[in-house]
């Protein structure tokens, strides 16, 4: 599971470079996330813009990744496809995460 991390203002944005987070890759996703969140950043955003589909195993892996964060750290979600959004909504997990519609909204505002 290929993940990349970039810093945008206060946010460490973890981008999932895969079209699906499903039962076949849930464990690889969790392992890859564990490596990505092992740093000093306190506010992570999981960028799901390439992810077109998740199943409940993928959902569970995202929750597991959020639970790996130490105290005082948080993880938001960004750019959910319609089917990914459905899985979060139907399981009410959309109430647990802050969800950003775009990454653009996370960019630091120009001073002045």
């Amino acid at each position: 599971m290929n993940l990349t991390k970039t810093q945008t203002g206060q946010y460490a944005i973890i981008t999932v470079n895969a079209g699906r987070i499903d039962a076949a890759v849930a464990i690889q996703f969790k392992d890859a996330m564990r490596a990505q969140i092992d740093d000093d950043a306190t506010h992570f955003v999981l960028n799901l813009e390439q992810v077109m589909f998740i199943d409940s195993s993928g959902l569970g892996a995202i929750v597991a990744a959020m639970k790996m964060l130490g105290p005082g750290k948080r993880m938001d979600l960004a750019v959910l496809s319609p089917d990914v959004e459905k899985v979060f909504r139907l399981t009410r997990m959309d109430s647990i995460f802050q969800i950003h519609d775009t990454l653009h909204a996370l960019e630091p505002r120009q001073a002045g």
Partner: protein
Amino acid sequence: MHETANDSVFSLIASQEGVRDGLLRIRRFLDASFLDQNACGILEIVLAEALNNVVEHAYDMCETGAISVALQLRIGGTSIDILDNGAAMAGNTLPEGRLPPLDCAVHNLPEGGFGWALIRSQTDALWYRRTKGRNHLHMHLPHRPA
């Protein structure tokens, strides 16, 4: 003029990769049908949960089986019949499938237990039968507006 009835049967290898491959093939069939994208998405989500359950429980993650998925798409809803030769459902009955509670501390949030709740929330008919050594799961999903 769009067709308003489509039927198809898919054969899947009973593994997590086989389910993924099957869902991709089924989604192409759904996308080419008269169904809207919302209905296609709901169907793929429900199928993923039902098929993952077959792989994990009926076949106990051993990649030796096959799964048959029959779809009947109609204006009012879609019928799904899933057949496999794996072990019977525990207690010969479907799990109750309530959504796990979320009003808890972060470290207690559920990482599973969503599958049957998802299936039950989207189906208006659902039954399971064990006949002649085969599992047969039937589901009907009404097509609701997005």
